């Protein structure tokens, strides 16, 4: 991993079209500004990782959905 020290107001250029700027440092929190092309997805990493992990769990679905379907109907009072 490349590690760079930056002050507020300074930035990091990634390739030709991605700019990450340190906007503000306040206590334990850093505010970053990210300029990237519209087709480059930018996400908070913990949210992205949470969804990736949930997708992996979802991929291990039971072979049969009948039980889930029955539970659903019961939940609806049907």
């Amino acid at each position, binding site marked *: 991993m490349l590690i760079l020290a930056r002050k507020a107001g300074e930035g990091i250029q990634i390739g030709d079209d991605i700019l990450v700027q340190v906007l503000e440092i306040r206590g334990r929190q850093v505010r970053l500004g990210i300029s990237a092309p519209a087709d480059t997805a930018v996400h908070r990493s913990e949210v992205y990782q949470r*969804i990736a992990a949930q997708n992996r769990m979802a*991929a291990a679905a039971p072979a049969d*959905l009948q039980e889930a379907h029955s539970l659903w109907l019961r939940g609806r009072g049907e």
Partner: protein
Amino acid sequence: MQNTAEEKAQQSDILHVETSRFGKIQITTGQIVTLPKGLVGFPQQKRFVLLSHREDSPFLWLQSIDDPTLAFVVVLTAAVVPEYQIELHEEDKQELQLQDEGQCAVYGLVTIPRQDPTAMTINLLGPIVINTNKLLGKQLVLHNCCYSHRHPLLAPDNGRSQKACCRITAK
């Protein structure tokens, strides 16, 4: 000759797909849902088909066409939380070739724990939006959203206690 050409066109439309759950299934190319970027964590699998569990069931399989073992269970988010709304950015709309928001269906991936199916959840933080005309889809990663990636599917007060917090807006 014309009939033969038509027959050939129809034949080329039919696709036999190997699946680990359903064996070999027959679909038409018109049923293929393409997710150009795949799902989060599964970028390689881009072509899927939606298969209903049963006609009277909200559960569907999102079966990969390219990986026989990869299938997800999905439910329309509206079936669980009727007022669920998402924010679609202009980039999302372009990616989905979406002109009219009425064209899209929003699904949530369902996680069913094998030991305890009663604890099944739906992911409302990373919904899958599908343009139902073009059959183009995308999994969104929502920002500033109050919904959970593990929203209980069987909660008795689903849809009543939660207020809509994300709106469809063009940016």
